[in-house]
């Protein structure tokens, strides 16, 4: 996993609520057996029509809209546990997703792939949507070390929470699996203590 520290980038605004992982990456694109290439089908059915032509109204198809920070409505990533959703967002180029509320499995999946979920207060996010509507070129700085989200050149900023362990992992680019493999002695001791069901 790549480490994450601070990024400054333009933002993509997507106010839809309850964006489920079936929208982020529809099931029919889950047939690959590696982690690459899912970005092409990110938000597939919102982005393209049945013939594969871009739908002009969709935010990612609008000229000049790009950035590493996705700002989304509440309850982002609900539904299926498919980690492909996090892979698709990352592969497309996002490094941060901002929402007032994340579904649990998605949050874990994102963190396990170097994609930072930033949870901010609902009214702050509503403010962001309005600000971005007026000026889509606004840039955000996301500083993981200091747990700060700020809009460059404005007063708009907010702290955010992150689990201390996950923060360390992200800053150092360490996977949970490395941590667990180092715990094997303890795991074996657990098994030998007869606590297995």
């Amino acid at each position: 996993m790549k480490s994450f520290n601070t990024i400054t980038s333009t933002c993509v605004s997507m106010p839809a609520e309850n964006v489920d992982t079936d929208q982020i990456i529809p099931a029919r694109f889950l047939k690959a057996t590696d982690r690459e290439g899912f970005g092409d089908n990110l938000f597939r059915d919102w982005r393209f029509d049945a013939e594969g032509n871009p739908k002009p109204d969709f935010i990612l198809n609008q000229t000049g809209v790009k950035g590493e920070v996705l700002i989304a409505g509440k309850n982002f990533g609900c539904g299926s546990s498919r980690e492909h959703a996090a892979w698709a967002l990352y592969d497309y180029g996002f490094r941060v997703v901002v929402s007032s509320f994340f579904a649990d499995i998605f949050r874990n999946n994102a963190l396990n792939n170097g994609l930072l979920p930033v949870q901010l207060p609902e009214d702050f996010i509503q403010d962001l949507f309005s600000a971005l509507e007026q000026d889509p070129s606004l840039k955000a700085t996301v500083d993981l070390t200091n747990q700060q989200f700020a809009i460059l050149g404005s007063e708009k900023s907010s702290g955010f929470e992150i689990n201390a362990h996950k923060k360390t992992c992200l800053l150092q680019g360490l996977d949970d699996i490395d941590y667990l493999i180092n715990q094997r002695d303890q795991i074996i001791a657990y098994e030998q203590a007869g606590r297995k069901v």
Partner: protein
Amino acid sequence: MSAKTLFEKVWDKHVVSQIQDGPSVIYIDRHFIHEVTSPQAFEGLRSRGIGVFRPDQTIATADHNVPTIDQHLPIKDKLSRLQVQKLTNNCQEFGLELYGLGHQYQGIVHVIGPELGITRPGMTIVCGDSHTSTHGAFGAIAFGIGTSEVEQVLATQCVLQPKPLSMKIEVDGPLASGVLSKDIILYVASKISTSGATGHFIEYTGSTIRGLSMEARMTICNMSIEMGARGGMIAPDDTTFEYLKGRKFGPHGVAWDYYLKQWKELYTDPDATFDASYKFDAADIVPMITYGTNPGMGMKITGRIPSGPDNQKALEYMGLTAGEQLLGKQINHVFIGSCTNSRIEDLRLVASLVKGKQKSPHVHAMVIPGSKQVEQQAKQEGLDQILEAAGFQLRQPGCSACLGMNEDKIPPGEYCVSTSNRNFEGRQGPGARTILASPLTAAATALAGCISDVREII
């Protein structure tokens, strides 16, 4: 000792260690895998040069991608075929038990675990699939994980998990005739919303829940995730023990007595507290249907679609308007299946309703058994003949039109009354419009050709 919830009793027993200010290392008793969310995890093991830590605690099946006709032939879709083949190769290479296509135990992962007695009370169970919550019906902590976590479990038999908050959902009183556990959970989801239980692990209690069969309890726990919960569980009782007795891979003889004693300790102590609680009266629950694009958007079958700014986008997709009644709406597709409602009890209910009747000519009605064993049992009981005589197509086991990864898709713009668990945009195929309901409501709809209230024909 302080009072504990059922969840805490099971959780505490599985904590290997605790990271300061971080998640717990949780030991996993049983791990299920399938073809879609596992290939990248095996790739990870390979690139680290390690094997599976406890191969006898992982069970594999092919379900998401598989066709539901002609399962003896090679899978036509190339990518699906490759993915299923990859699962077979990975299981061989890493020494895992596989119930692949054609195997007598193959089926939807959340159907086969319980029916084979692999799922048991007091266990921790994970799978790279959000509906792993189904297994909670046995008093297990069961939850869905992502592929990175699948790799963690393969490599160490553990996952890192923060301890969730607790939620109690109590339902009391007798259920009216024609009302099934699917209606209970659609009702609860409509009250709590699609995100109302996020961060929580649910325990379902109350006399209504106690009165349900194991199959019906699994339907409830299955849909916990549709309210955002990590999982849902029900304390094991005589119904649970009765179901488990004699199951293929369950304990037998002295082992049975030993486990039974332990299972009887699995309940929430009277003084234990929950972070959130809800209480519902079964008398308020009638057959339910959904009108929108998440499972929390449900209403009484006789109801009118509520208005509200939040509904607008969903109603546009569904081609419906606020204030409209769905009862009587023409429907061309009925899907009876998925890990929510594809067990033998579901098929029996459907068969008993449609026996001697005919589906409406314009309806395409599919019945997909949850497993090879359910399919066999249905045939032994003659349900296949009843269904076929009524014009319902009994196909072979798999996830099928629940998520449309195989050919079983609903055409764009068409409505499907479905016994599955998700009505998300495009879930059953691009542009498909899903209306979630119980197996009885689905069957009644297929007979009438339009959305019907099953209470009027029983």
